């Protein structure tokens, strides 16, 4: 691995990783405040990507930047609505049900969302109209596409905004209280229902933003749902219940995937075969290794059982 290869990998990896981090934060916030592991998160990313493209082209009569802005606004509203609807219609009746049921319900939700998307958009790769010119800029001497830079910057800005929101706003504090101790928070006047609803809406919006940013950069197809699972890797690395952990995990997965995955694909041969698509499984290897070493993630809290 040459120094230049690693440097390029790190820069690109950080850019992609910042988007993973954003998606992972949605995941973690949902887990923290509702204790639900959402295996439909990838579908929320997909939903954001497809809907934003469809909405942008629906506003095609406007100049491209305006159409894009309108498309994004519509998508975010729809994502929030989807989050609220899921919480109200599916998750609320399952409150207090065993872990297994809840996980499977999120899987089932993923099925439904993806099924409908395949039905409507039939699985072809779609791209946004050229919102940002397809030029290449140099970051730390490394060529990166301008879209990538913009996406990463947007993701970073949003991450900062979200952390400020959780630290200082009323709802942010309520959600953190609920995350800490659900029953206590509810006796102190925090409406758990609302916290859950907001958490779902937040997760859906974060996923959708991730989908839009990745879609701008790489185009949208059904492989995008796998990004949800990369966010899962990020979250596992960071520990399910740690927001800073999720951000760091996202960046880490981005870098490892680009550097290690890229290297393996380009240079390593097994049984004389090049390792096509190794990048895609790097995230899962990361998950397994992380769990072997630290079963509760790098920053996750381990529960001490009292008898």
């Amino acid at each position, binding site marked *: 691995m040459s120094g230049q290869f690693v440097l390029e990998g790190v820069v690109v990896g950080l850019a992609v990783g910042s988007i993973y981090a954003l998606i992972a934060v949605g995941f973690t916030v949902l887990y923290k405040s509702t204790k639900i*592991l959402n295996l439909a998160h990838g579908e929320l990313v997909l939903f954001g990507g497809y809907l934003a493209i469809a909405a942008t082209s629906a506003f095609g009569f406007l100049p491209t930047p305006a159409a894009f802005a309108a498309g994004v606004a519509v998508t975010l509203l729809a994502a929030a609505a989807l989050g609220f609807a899921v919480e109200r219609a*599916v998750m609320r*009746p*399952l409150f207090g*049900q065993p*872990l*297994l*049921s809840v*996980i*499977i*319900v999120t*899987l*089932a*939700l*993923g*099925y*439904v969302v*993806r*099924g*409908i*998307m*395949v*039905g*409507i958009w*039939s*699985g072809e790769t779609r791209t946004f109209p050229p919102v940002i010119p397809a030029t290449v800029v140099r970051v730390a001497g490394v060529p990166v596409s301008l879209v990538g830079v913009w996406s990463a910057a947007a993701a970073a800005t949003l991450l900062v905004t979200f952390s400020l929101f959780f630290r200082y706003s009323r709802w942010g504090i309520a959600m953190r209280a609920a995350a800490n101790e659900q029953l206590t928070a509810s006796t102190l006047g925090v409406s758990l229902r609302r916290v859950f609803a907001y958490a779902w809406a937040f997760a859906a919006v974060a996923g959708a933003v991730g989908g839009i940013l990745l879609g701008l950069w790489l185009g949208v197809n059904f492989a995008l749902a796998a990004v949800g*699972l990369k966010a*899962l*890797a990020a979250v*596992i690395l960071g520990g*399910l219940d740690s927001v800073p952990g999720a951000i760091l995990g996202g960046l880490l997965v981005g870098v490892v995937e680009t550097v290690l995955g890229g290297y393996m694909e380009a240079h390593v041969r*097994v*049984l004389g*075969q090049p*390792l*096509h*698509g190794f990048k*895609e*499984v790097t995230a*899962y*290897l990361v*998950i*397994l290794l992380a*769990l*072997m070493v630290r*079963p*509760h*993630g790098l920053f996750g809290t381990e529960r001490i*059982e009292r*008898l």
Partner: protein
Amino acid sequence: MAYARPCGDFKTSYAQDMALLDIRLYRWGFLLLLAAMVAAPWVLGRWIYLLNDIAVFAIGAVGLSLVMGFAGQISLGHAAFMAVGAYTSWFATTHLKLPFVAALPLSAVVAFAVGAVVGLPSLRIKGLYLAIATLAFQFLVEYLIVQTVSGMGGTPVPPMDLFGVPVNTEVRFWYVVATVWVVGAVFATNLTRTRVGLALMAVRDRDYAAQVLGVNLLYYKTLAFALGAAYAGVAGSLFAHYNRVIGAEHFSLAQSIDFVAMLVIGGLGSVWGPHLGAAFVRMLTQLLKMWAPVLGAVIPVLGRATTSVHDVVFGVILIVFLIWEPGGLATLLRKFKRYVDLWPFPH
């Protein structure tokens, strides 16, 4: 022994009390079920392939019910173990030139071993984290299949051969698969009412208490995964020789989730659950395959693709079951059984 449940407890030995089919009605019912299985090809004609399909997946589902229903360990990678069995059987019959009767147990043994290895970390990795670990395992196996053996296409598998008799028709396959099905199901049911089953349920219900009562958590969690994988391996081996071609798409994450769906719909922690669930899920899959174009035409949102109809219908059914009947079909059946027990009285 009465036909229906007697009023008052007339059992005179513990053996009677612990028998699976404790009244004559159920014993006759079970014999009738076996007879129906023998007669099925004549009754069903060419539709016997539906039963073959159900049987293969029911065997796999029984394995998952040991892992999830009895031991309470979430596994989202069950199809990967099926793949292990299928490719073992393929390798044994093509490269090692072994007969099917040797390849089938070999598949079970290899899958058992792989299951034990995957199950080992389950002592440290728990709950959600374990679910994710099995998910990662699923993806890695899929990747491995594509990279090493099958590529994006499939690998051809020779037909089943039983002591020189080629098992090349649906009817012949039915008798083979039905035998394995019944033996496997009875074996699993017996497990659940003896030492192994008690220990697994103890681990599921409260692992620390089980430990203090002498249950070795590492041993039993690993055993659960290994047993579950062995069943999946047998199902994989049967599937390979039935379908005659195997590839990554047969053992995908979607298949793993279908297995989970079978358990949830059938009823977790019930011995009939996996069979009912497998029957429901596979029948529905086949029906949807036939009717998808019609449904797509009526409801345009569902579009042209079969997969989308399948996904949406499955997702909705799963959600409905989990919200309204978390006990699954087995619980519905139990309610019916209670009705039979009490007949002709309402309570």
